[in-house]
């Protein structure tokens, strides 16, 4: 078991490396699409920065050699200097942003699970009653309302009508409540729906009837026999959830003026800071691969029928 698990992890890590390499290559050559190289014609770049960049990216070398040079440096974790923010390396900028973004992301993920799973269980347990109907109505709304719309409504309500939370910024936990709630909402809604469907499916299974025929208490049936099977779809949805939370954080960091990785990435895209944008894409890809790996391992641990590697 342990050996197959290790082998599985090794395989997945290799696969992630391949994905990273693909993304790297794609972004590298996209950057080279700009006629005359990415640093030639931009007016905003001061001569010193340009000289540094050209030296750093070895623009004097032929293209294949540039590519290898850049690939090796990136593989060692050096993403190079920023294109628009003088005296900062991409590593430094992303490092600072990462703290903010990961706080936001972790809060949002926990919020989505902590809200979605109980809501789904409740909804399934009271199937067809008014609790169920309200939860599902909210969930449907939560799925359909985009997070930036929700964010603007939240700002209107909680900053102007009932002033409870600050409108943005970074520093206190109160400033994280609104953004992570808005970020979590659509995923909480989807998880609630998945949990409900999973619960209802499992509760209709023969083995739940057997558990009842065995005289087990309802709570034991719900928690020990039903929840585990019902959680499987939720766990497999955690991968897309992570991806969605990473994407959503781009918007919410902008809306709430949080200095996270997402804001830096969007700013980089708007100001054509190629090195920063490329670094951010690579970091996002890496984060996503790691999360996917964790999700897959927990899936394997949860369902004894799944054979590793299949």
């Amino acid at each position, binding site marked *: 078991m342990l050996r197959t698990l290790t082998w599985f992890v090794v395989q997945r890590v290799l696969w992630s490396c391949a994905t990273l390499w693909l993304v790297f290559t794609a972004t590298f050559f996209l950057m080279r699409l700009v006629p005359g190289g990415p640093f030639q014609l931009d007016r905003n770049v001061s001569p010193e920065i340009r000289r540094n960049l050209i030296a750093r990216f070895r623009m004097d070398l032929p293209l294949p050699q540039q590519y290898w040079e850049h690939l090796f440096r990136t593989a060692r974790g050096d993403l190079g200097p920023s294109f628009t923010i003088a005296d900062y390396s991409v590593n430094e900028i992303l490092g600072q942003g990462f703290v903010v973004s990961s706080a936001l992301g972790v809060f949002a993920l926990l919020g989505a699970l902590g809200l979605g799973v109980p809501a789904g269980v409740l909804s399934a347990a009271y199937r067809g009653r008014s609790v169920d109907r309200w939860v599902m109505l909210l969930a449907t709304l939560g799925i359909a309302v985009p997070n930036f719309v929700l964010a603007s409504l939240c700002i209107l309500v909680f900053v102007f009508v009932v002033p409870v939370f600050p409108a943005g910024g970074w520093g206190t936990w109160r400033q994280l409540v609104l953004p992570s709630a808005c970020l979590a909402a659509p995923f909480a809604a989807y998880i609630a729906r998945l949990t409900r469907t999973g619960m209802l499916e499992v509760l209709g299974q023969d083995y739940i009837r057997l558990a009842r025929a065995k005289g087990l*208490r309802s709570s034991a049936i719900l928690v020990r026999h039903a929840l585990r099977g019902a959680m499987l779809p939720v766990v497999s949805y955690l991968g897309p959830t992570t991806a969605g939370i990473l994407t959503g954080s781009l918007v919410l960091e902008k809306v709430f003026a949080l200095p996270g990785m997402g804001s830096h990435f969007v700013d980089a895209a708007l100001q054509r800071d190629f090195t920063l944008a490329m670094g951010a894409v690579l970091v996002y890809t890496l984060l996503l691969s790691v999360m996917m790996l964790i999700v897959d391992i927990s899936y394997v641990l949860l369902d004894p029928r799944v054979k590793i590697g299949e």
Partner: protein
Amino acid sequence: MTVERNNLKQNTILQVADLQVEFRTQYGVLTAVNDVTFQVSAGETLAIVGESGSGKSATQLAILGLLPTPPGRVVRGRAMFGGEDLLTLSERRLQDIRGRQIGMVFQDPMTALNPFLTIGTQLAEMPRRHFGSSSHDSREQALAMLERVGIVPAVKRFDDYPHQFSGGMRQRVLVAMALICRPQLVIADEPTTALDVSIQAQILDLIQELAVREGTAVVMITHNLGVVASRCQRVVVMYAGRIVEMASVQELFSNPRHPYTRALLASIPRVDAVKSRLVAIEGQPPDLVSLPPGCAFAPRCTHRIARCSEEVPQLNLSEGGTEVACWVDPGTIDSENVRHET
């Protein structure tokens, strides 16, 4: 009521009376179980026979309070067990009885076991729940029970998951679950239909052997008359939610009275018959939503008289202790050829 029936009553452990169960479907309300009355004595094996949709499973689920409600509903009736009416008990009290005093063996061993928990966990949780055994004791009891149903070496299989077992082995595990708390009554709902023919007999023998040893009464729900012949003492034949005939095994096989029972017996393929042809009962099984006003079997019955389609026949004591629900005088049927001899 006869003397014989009163005698039976003294050691009766389960008495079901006037049970009526309805299901609400999109086509209308159907009565799955109608006026069902029977009793089970301690230590006996009773068979409930009927085709699918005849209400045998619904009867059993209603008794245990496992009917899927909303669609299903017990309209009226009593199910006396140990001085209590199972149909009016609270869910908590029922939970104490289920598994502890009444065991269940389900039809399909492939789906009845929880795929996420080991066999051992699923078995050991029963003594822990009902006797409050420690985890060590319940493990010991579970191991002993596994040995007794022929899963050896039990220690080795204890931590295996259901998907690592074959169908027959899983059914053995289910039998172990039904009997581990030494219940007074075991209800086996078609325990062999999902299994290979070669394994069916093994499982049936296992249930019978364990039941005899523990003095447990067994209600065997089946559509297989072969099972009935060799292993049961009494038979209840159901059709369209009603009991049409109730008799001892010997009486039922040697002298079937209800036309439906006869047709059932005739439809068993016989190897020794000279001219063999698969005999089916003519016509369609009844539509439970819109049953005819009289006897539900009347449209398919070759002996029907005018009264059959007007009034529902009640169970009446006939000779040999058999109870039959039929308007036709058995004598007139006897004179005709029984179909499987043609």
